[in-house]
C-alpha cells in the first residue's frame, strides 16, 4: 500500500499553495493514501486549511515551540520520525523543501528524487536535469522509503472541498539547538506573489537601471500581475533577488507571462516554460525568447510599454 506523507509549507499561519500541488502529484499515484503533516508552534489554523484539500485523508499536527521557524535542522528529525509509517515522503521543490527534504532523506538513510514533474507510478518518476535541457525517467526501489521534492510548476493545486481528519501527533526526536533563526527580510509589495500569480510581468537587462525598472512595476499594476526579473537584471542590481525567474530562481507557471527586454537565456526559459501564454517584447528580433513566445513584438520597450499601458482596459 502506498502511503504518502506530505510535509506542508506555511508562512504566518497560511498554507502555501505548494502543498496543494504536492497533493495533486501524490494523488496521481494510483491508490495512494495521502496525509499532510503540519510542523508548527501552533498548527491549528494551517491544519484546518490542509484538511480542506481534496484527496487528503489525515492532517497531522506536530506542534513544538522550536517549530516556530522552518529550520531544516530542527524539522528534519521530526519529519523522519513521522515518516516511519509511510512509504513516501514528499515536500515542495521550493527553497523550504529543497533545504529540508534531503536532510530528511539522509536521516532515513535513502537518496532523494528532486523536482518530480510527473509520477508514472509509485516508483517511476520524470524529472528535469541540465536546467531543463533534458528530462530523465528514473526507477526507485520499492523496498526503500521514497523521499522526493515536487516541482510545483508541473502540477495544479488540489482543489478545496475535502474534509480530512486532524490529529495531533507527539513524537520523540532530538531537536538540535545549533541552528538559530535571526531574521527574514521580505519585501512587502502589495502585489500578487510571483510564485502563485496568474499573471507575471518580468523585466530583463534591457531595462538598464533600477530606476527604469519602475515601468515593469507600472505595467504589472495595470494588469494586476506579479513582478519577476531575469538573472541578468537581478545581477545588475535592477531588481531584488527574490524576483528572479529561472533555473536558479523561481520556476513559475502563470496564465500570462510578459517578458520585457529579456533575451531568453535557457536558464530563464526553464523557469517559464509551463506558462500558459508567453508574451515577449524585445528590440532584438533574433532574441531566443521569441522561439518560445506565443505572441512576440519587436520594439523599444520604453516606447511600447507606455502605449501598451494606455491601450489596456
Amino acid at each position, binding site marked *: 500500500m502506498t502511503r504518502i506523507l506530505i510535509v506542508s509549507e506555511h508562512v504566518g499561519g497560511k498554507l502555501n499553495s505548494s502543498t496543494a500541488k504536492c497533493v495533486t502529484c501524490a494523488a496521481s499515484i494510483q491508490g495512494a493514501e495521502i496525509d499532510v503533516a503540519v510542523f508548527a508552534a501552533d498548527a491549528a489554523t494551517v491544519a484546518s486549511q490542509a484538511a480542506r484539500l481534496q484527496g487528503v485523508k489525515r492532517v497531522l499536527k506536530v506542534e513544538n515551540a522550536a517549530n516556530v521557524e522552518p529550520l531544516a535542522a530542527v524539522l528534519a528529525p521530526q519529519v523522519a520520525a513521522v515518516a516511519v509509517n509511510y512509504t513516501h515522503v514528499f515536500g515542495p521543490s521550493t527553497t523550504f523543501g529543497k533545504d529540508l527534504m*534531503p*536532510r530528511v532523506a539522509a536521516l532515513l538513510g*535513502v537518496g*532523494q528524487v528532486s523536482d518530480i514533474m510527473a509520477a508514472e507510478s509509485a516508483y517511476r518518476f520524470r524529472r528535469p536535469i*541540465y536546467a531543463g535541457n533534458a528530462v530523465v525517467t*528514473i*526507477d526507485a526501489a520499492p523496498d526503500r522509503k521514497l523521499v522526493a521534492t515536487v516541482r510545483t510548476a508541473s502540477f495544479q493545486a488540489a482543489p478545496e472541498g475535502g474534509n480530512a481528519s486532524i490529529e495531533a501527533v507527539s513524537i520523540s526526536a532530538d531537536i538540535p539547538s545549533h541552528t538559530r533563526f535571526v531574521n527574514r527580510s521580505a519585501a512587502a509589495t502589495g502585489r500578487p506573489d510571483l510564485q502563485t500569480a496568474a499573471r507575471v510581468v518580468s523585466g530583463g537587462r534591457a531595462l538598464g537601471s533600477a530606476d527604469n525598472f519602475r515601468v515593469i512595476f507600472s505595467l504589472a499594476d495595470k494588469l494586476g500581475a506579479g513582478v519577476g526579473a531575469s538573472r541578468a537584471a537581478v545581477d545588475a542590481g535592477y531588481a531584488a533577488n527574490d524576483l528572479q525567474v529561472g533555473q536558479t530562481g*523561481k520556476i513559475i507557471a502563470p496564465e500570462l507571462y510578459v517578458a520585457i527586454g529579456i533575451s531568453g537565456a535557457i536558464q530563464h526559459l526553464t523557469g517559464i516554460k509551463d506558462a500558459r501564454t508567453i508574451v515577449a517584447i524585445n528590440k532584438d528580433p533574433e532574441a531566443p525568447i521569441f522561439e518560445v513566445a506565443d505572441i*512576440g513584438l519587436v520594439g523599444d520597450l520604453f516606447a511600447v510599454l507606455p502605449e501598451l499601458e494606455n491601450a489596456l482596459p
Partner: protein
Amino acid sequence: MSKILVGLKRVVDANVRVRVKPDGTGVVTDGIKMSINPFDEIALEEALRIKEKGAASEVIVVCIGPAEAQQQLRTGLAMGADRAILIQTDAAVEPIAAAKVLLKLVEKESPQIVLLGKQGIDDDNNQTGQMLAALWNRPQATFASKVELDGGTAKVTREVDAGLETIEVDLPAVITSDLRLNEPRYVKLPDIMKAKKKPLDTVTAKDLGVDISAQFKVVKFEAPASRQKGVMVKDVAELVAALKQKGLI
C-alpha cells in the same frame, strides 16, 4: 587553526548547450568542455576569502569523479586551495553516496566549515550539502549569499523564496553557496604553474569504506517538450487584439 573543505564537481561547462543522445541513453559529453560546477567555484572563492582574512589556515578541495577530474582540482589549486583529494570513480555518484564519501573525509580532516555549491548544474539535485550535514549531525546553511564568521559561529544570509533569511549556526557546519555569494577570481598563469607542485592525493571510495552504488536507475533520457512557436505582432494594437482574442484581457 581551522580547515575548510570544499567540494568541486566536474560538470559539462555552463556555456555548452546540452543535448540528449538520439538513443536516449544519456547526454552528449564526447569532446565537450568540462569545468568546475559554477556553484562550487563560488564556494571555493568564499573559502579562499575566509582564509585570506585569517579565519582559516588551510583550504582543501575535494572531487569525486574520474581521473580527468584532476584538471578541475588543479584549477582549484591554481585559484588558491592548498591541497586536493580526488576520490576516483568512473561511476555516476548520487548525492547520498557523495555525502557518505564527504563524511569520511570530514571525519579524517575535521574541518571547521564544509563549503559546497548548492547544486550541480548537471543533475540539478540540490541535495549533497544537506545530506552531509544530516549524516554529520551538524548545522546546514544552504543557498548562502553572505557568510560572516564570528569565532565559533557563522551568521549566514540565505536566498529563500520570500527574500533573504539570516540564520546563525554553530561551527563546524556545512554551507552551500548561491549565485550572489561572490564573484570567483580568475586564475593567473603563474598560479597554474605553482598549482602543479601542490599535493593531490587520489583515493577510491572503497579505500574509504563507502558503498557508492546507485539507489536509483535512470531508465531513459529525453529532450524536453518544446513549445509551439507563436505569432509575431507588428504593434501594440495588434498585441492588445491578440491578448483579447486569447481572453487574457
